[in-house]
């Protein structure tokens, strides 16, 4: 995406409508929260450790986060097995705010139906930009 959002939505990533991103790395998918999502959430003060080894479906809640007296759920961006949780978030949950596409990643999932799941995610294209515009308008951002 161009302009202001260019660095916020790396073009190689896939995005869902609850402000998560997915990056395919070999046979796993790394999941995190978008720069827009973390701005919407505010300072993340706790990230509940996800259960490594758990089998999950795309869209299924897998752990919760707390920000600004709000406890919300994070959904699996693809289905599969959770193979890693970012334990750096135990001590530094605000890495999600500071480096949403880097050290603030949340979980790694070994997908079991990658192509189909990716097809249900968005790219930072015109349609996704319209979705974000409507989100910005809704929340006055």
């Amino acid at each position, binding site marked *: 995406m161009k302009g202001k959002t260019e660095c916020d939505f790396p073009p190689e990533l896939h995005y869902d409508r609850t402000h998560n991103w997915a990056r395919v790395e070999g046979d796993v998918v790394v999941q995190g929260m978008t720069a827009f999502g973390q701005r919407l959430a505010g300072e993340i003060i*706790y990230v509940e450790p996800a259960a490594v080894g758990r089998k999950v479906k795309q869209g299924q809640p897998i752990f919760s986060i707390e920000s*600004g*007296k*709000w*406890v*919300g*759920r994070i959904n699996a961006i693809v289905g599969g097995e959770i193979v890693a949780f970012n334990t750096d978030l*135990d001590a530094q949950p605000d890495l999600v705010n500071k480096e949403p596409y880097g050290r603030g990643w949340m979980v790694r999932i070994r997908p079991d139906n990658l192509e189909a799941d990716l097809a249900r995610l968005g790219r930072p294209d015109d349609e996704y930009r319209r979705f974000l515009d409507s989100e910005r308008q*809704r*929340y006055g951002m």
Partner: protein
Amino acid sequence: MTPLPLPLYNFGSVDWLTTQSLYHALAYLGRPGLNIIWPQQPYVCIGRFQDVEAEVDVEACRQRGLPVVRREVGGGAVFLDGRQVFYQLVLPLDWLPDSYSYRWLFRLGLDAVVLALKRLGVDAYIRGANDVAVGQRKISGNGAGEVGRAAVVVGNILSGFDYETMAAVLRVPDEKFRDKAYRSMKDNLVTLSELELPIADEQVAGALAEAFGDVLAPGFRLEPAFELPPEVREYLPGMASRLTSEAWLHEVQRRRDERRLRVRAGLELRQHVWKAPGGLLRCQCAIEDGVVAWVSLSGDFFVDPPRALLELEEALSGRPLETVKEEAAHFLARPGVSLPGVGPEDIERAVRGS
């Protein structure tokens, strides 16, 4: 569009545990509701991801006969009693769009509290993300979360507040911190009684119900309900058992080298411990709107001359949090000041925390 019917459970004074188990039960059942209630007995309630042993002096609670319970919504440890009128709004997730925002949910609660207070003659306004204040002082705290099959926002209006008990049940590093907490709460909270508005709880409850009716329209329509559906009644005992189980209360265990007490939006009392090469740094401070309001440093490091520690505290006080490292560097560069093994980045870490 036809408004969605939302039962109003304006039950007034109920058993303390019901003030927690009722909204959790509604949420797990995916049933909508607005509860307006307050507890017959006082108790202490911690947030979803708080470590009870780190936040609450459980022994002090036991001595005072105060039960302790963990809720599933966010926020900090609070002392709750019958001088606070609670609201609890439960909206099933399948009523909401996937990308609904917690800010929107908070606003429903906050707008209703402000409207209710204004109608009671109190000039209240929304302060920060989730407080309602009068002047500079908070009169309503609010928290929210996704619980079971619902999105929930809860909060209160303070008719009165027992500052002494609240300060007594907090886990604090020392009595100095407790005293700071007590005085900070006295300075930053306000109640209807302190405003010399001795309004009956029932009147506050009525104003809240009316305000929610207005705020929730036209999407939702409040429908007064005088008893709980059988399904909810049957679910309540199990939920009460879960919320009071030792396993649930102690479910979260977190790092103990950090303590933060949020007094109101924009004001936190903090204690951090940081192991610098030159020794352990213990920092107590107040951060007000991003500024170090005051700071107290101690530990087992060496400082020369001894008065330099006091001067360092003075140098950091009143400075923006992001300039702490820079201020510390300036201070440590002063001729004759020596803190071996303690650098500006250590002082920053001790003040800012992780």
